[in-house]
């Protein structure tokens, strides 16, 4: 029990102190007061800290809280679809469910892949493609592992999806090309945005968009097809689950495109060219619309959409036939004799010759004072040749004379006015300008003077002259239109998806090629009509139900490209001539102009002309 003490305050001096209740009470009171002051101080320190957070830094934390709560999610727009001129669907969007993995959120990617393998049937190819994409993409981006999941696969995966952080099933619209390979080079394909493209695109425009047009119309009309990303502001919880939609700005779907291509005609063209490497371009000369743009061989567009596997890509890219190469647009060829109508027109327009000018062909031609022989293809000679016979028989000597009279600069001038040797301006990316040489060009390029012999070669479509099938078709259309020039184009109408409103694209006229006497055109065209009636392309003229104006060409080449390496094993094939043919029909009212190149096809009249004929028949006779 406590010791009861006296109330006498004792000053404890010595070893035995006694308790002093009053002093102790006072002491306690003082200490309690000090403690209370300390408590108050500590609480005020807390208030200070809280004021620092809530008043001084309120804005900062309010923003953080808001960004915690509200997430801005992009809503991807539907890509515009692509149709042919008659409304046949060429590029569609299919909804597909895919498994997607965000590498950043996966603790062990390899283990996850192994475990997923049990639930999904993953091919080596799927995994290889996935790994390739992982390397190329930022780690916070969802990367597809498998597309077009079946209901069964989804069911199997969904059961324990929670065990795989970073793995999700997403529903997506995937580009699909129902015709596969038809018109592949014109339509082009979309693919996942790669690192290089990431550098050049505006990330805001591509928020929520994973694909971009890589080639063809898909690329050149990317901005129209893509549409505009929408946004939704959603309230999310800490797990990122959406709780409430706060605000939404709907995406604007991309515009539908109606190509000028007639897919039926395209199919005919591709079928007709089958077996050849080559190209065919058909243009409606009245408006510049490209009716068919074939480059053979073709390839299937669909594998490219979600990343083609390495082996298939290698097979395509290293094939000597170069299927991925758009020959119509980028292949450059010597035009051979198909240049002759243009040379002839240049001669007439410059008064270097007139329709009655006659040159004698002995099968060979010598430049004055030189010993080098320039041969006619017909070594026996054509005798006296006028303009009409010159074109009909494709007499080289006649055109040597015309070219010499013209001189390279005037020849260059006129060929260029036909858009030869320069980009036609078609609505595709990557057009090769080709080359129409001039004295100036040679000096700049080789620092060498121009020789007259080179003019002769250019006059018959050889030498430095290199043009694309598209240029040739476009120039033929200009010829058919007697100098009226229109820029070739692939898209004839653009449709607003929301309203369905179709906006037709007006033809894009270029400065016309004017000659002082319209009969110059008549003379050249008459020659071309005779080519098909009785000349080098007579075999297609015999049963033609309409008048064709055409010109054959047989171009000597050793290789497709200037840069291509000499290859002994392929020499035999490579030594064969390219077969070319240009034509328009009906001659009196041209509705279609065609240029065909069959690489190493031999003679233009026998190899290329029938191909053009099939296409013209299909178009004009609706066969």
């Amino acid at each position, binding site marked *: 029990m*406590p*010791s*009861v003490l006296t109330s006498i305050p004792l000053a*404890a001096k010595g070893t035995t*102190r*006694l*308790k*002093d*209740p009053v002093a*102790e*009470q006072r*002491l*306690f*009171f003082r*200490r*309690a007061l000090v*403690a*209370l002051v300390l*408590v*108050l101080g*500590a*609480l005020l*320190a*807390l*208030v200070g*800290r*809280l*004021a620092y*957070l*809530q*008043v001084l*830094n*309120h804005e*900062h*934390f*309010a923003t*953080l*809280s*808001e960004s*915690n*709560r509200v997430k801005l999610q992009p809503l991807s727009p539907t890509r515009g679809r692509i149709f042919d001129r008659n409304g046949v669907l060429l590029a569609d969007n299919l909804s597909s469910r895919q498994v997607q993995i965000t590498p950043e959120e996966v603790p062990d990617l390899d283990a996850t892949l192994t475990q997923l393998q049990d639930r999904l049937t993953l091919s080596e190819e799927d995994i290889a493609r996935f790994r390739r994409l992982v390397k190329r993409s930022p780690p916070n981006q969802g990367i597809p592992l498998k597309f077009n999941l079946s209901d069964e696969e989804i069911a199997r995966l969904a059961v324990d999806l929670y065990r795989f952080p970073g793995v999700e099933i997403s529903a997506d619209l995937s580009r699909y090309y129902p015709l596969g390979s038809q018109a592949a080079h014109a339509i082009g394909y979309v693919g996942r945005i790669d690192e290089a493209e990431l550098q050049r695109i505006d990330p805001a425009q591509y928020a929520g968009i994973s694909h971009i047009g890589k080639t063809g119309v898909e690329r050149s009309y990317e901005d129209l097809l893509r549409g505009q990303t929408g946004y939704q502001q959603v*309230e*999310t*919880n*800490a*797990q990122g689950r959406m*709780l409430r939609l706060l605000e939404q700005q709907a995406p604007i779907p991309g515009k539908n495109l109606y190509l000028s291509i007639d897919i039926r005609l395209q199919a005919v063209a591709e079928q007709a060219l089958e077996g050849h490497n080559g190209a065919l371009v058909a243009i409606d000369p009245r408006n510049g619309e490209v009716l068919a743009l074939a480059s053979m061989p073709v390839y299937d567009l669909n594998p490219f959409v979600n990343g083609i596997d390495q082996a298939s890509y290698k097979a395509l890219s290293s094939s000597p036939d170069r299927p991925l190469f758009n020959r119509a647009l980028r292949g450059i060829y010597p035009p051979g004799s198909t240049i002759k109508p243009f040379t002839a027109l240049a001669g007439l327009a410059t008064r270097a010759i007139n329709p009655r000018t006659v040159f004698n062909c002995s099968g060979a031609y010598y430049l004055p004072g030189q010993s080098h022989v320039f041969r006619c293809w017909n070594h026996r000679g054509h005798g006296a040749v006028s303009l009409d016979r010159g074109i009909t028989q494709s007499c080289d000597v006649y055109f040597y004379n015309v070219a010499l009279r013209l001189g390279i600069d005037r020849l260059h001038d006129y060929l260029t006015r036909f858009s030869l040797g320069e980009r036609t301006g078609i609505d595709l990316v990557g057009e090769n300008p080709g080359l129409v040489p001039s004295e100036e060009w040679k000096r700049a390029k080789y620092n060498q003077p121009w020789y007259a012999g080179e003019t002769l070669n250019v006059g018959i479509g050889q030498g430095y002259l290199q043009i694309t099938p598209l240029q040739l078709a476009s120039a033929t259309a200009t010829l058919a239109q007697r100098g009226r020039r229109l820029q070739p184009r692939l898209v004839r109408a653009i449709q607003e998806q929301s309203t369905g409103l179709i906006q037709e694209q007006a033809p894009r006229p270029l400065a016309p090629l004017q000659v002082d006497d319209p009969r110059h055109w008549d003379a050249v065209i008459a020659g071309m009509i005779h080519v098909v009636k009785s000349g080098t392309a007579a075999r297609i003229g015999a049963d033609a139900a309409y008048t064709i104006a055409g010109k054959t060409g047989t171009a000597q080449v050793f290789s497709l490209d200037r840069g291509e390496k000499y290859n002994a094993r392929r020499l035999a094939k490579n030594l064969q001539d390219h077969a070319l043919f240009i034509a328009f029909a009906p001659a009196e009212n041209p509705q279609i102009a065609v240029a065909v190149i069959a690489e190493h096809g031999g003679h233009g009249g026998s190899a290329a002309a029938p191909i053009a004929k099939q296409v013209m028949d299909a178009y004009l006779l609706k066969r």
Partner: protein
Amino acid sequence: MKISLLKEIDVLNLDSRRRPLERLHLDTPLLFALLSAAALGLLVLYSAGRENLDLVLRQGVRLGLGFVVLCLLAQAPPRYLRTWTPWIYGGGILLLIAVLMVGEISKGARRWLDLGPLRFQPAEIMRLAVPMMMAWYFADRPLPPRLWPLCGGALLTVLPVLLIAKQPDLGTALLVACAGMFALFLSGLSWKIIAGLGLLAAGGGPLAWRFALHDYQRQRILTFLDPQADPLGAGYHIIQSQIAIGSGGLYGKGWLNSTQAHLEFLPESSTDFILAVFAEEFGLMGLCALLALYFFIIARGLYLATRAPTTYERLLAGSLALTFFVYIFVNAGMVCGLLPVVGLPLPLISYGGTSLVTIMAGFGILMGIDSRRRASPY
């Protein structure tokens, strides 16, 4: 202090004219303050628990139990408590040793003792037993204490603190240590020694860092110093808590409008971090009011202690009142990023029962001490 003045007048009145609450040995102002805090707690809990009424009801039951314990302990005359003190303390130490040997492990710590139907943390007993023992120890000795009694008292505190820290339960160890230190302080420990201990603590800090702390405790301190180092891991609590507080601003977002809690960004929003929810919804103004309420409770407790007639009662009451403050300061300091994360609840507000009962028991003892001061034999 108007209320306490009235109380003073009241005290002079005859026993029979006392208010009913006082006949029950309860202190009216303190009880009302505690009830207000508890009511406020339920209100915040309703919001922090995402409007889960079930949670609020369960906490209401616990609070009810807490007030029952308070009332019961208020009936215990202090002199009986004093008699029993060494036994309670000794028993507590034995239980702590038992826990270390046969205790149940939960969440990586050995804290629980399972005695058939009763499952409890012996450390909780020490929260009360240590201040009681310290008061008992110094009650018979002349104050301020000299060196040897001081060492003896210190030993009485250090022993259970070490046992609790070994479990490990840093929060309770801290509370028990504080309770002992407050008793020492109130007993009149000389300022020189206090300064010396302060220096020793400053010097011992690095040693404790090196040898005494567990890895997770070290990590907590590192995280506290730089929460941004691991914003999604260890720093997440601190960052989200500060976002909640800061976004509350001066006046708060309003009751039930805490986005941090409702959208689950703030972990432990209804337990240890409930103050952040309060701060988000009621702002600095609400916090000041809450802290003022707490301050009133502490001040009232200390006031009641100073009125107590014996040293034992004074030291015990004062130590209990100040220990209550430790809860508040450590919890609020942790929530607003002033202190490292230590798992102490906000008394009367946080969801959870164990510490609530202990706290209420402490206030029960405090009230019991005060109500009998006239009846005491001194």
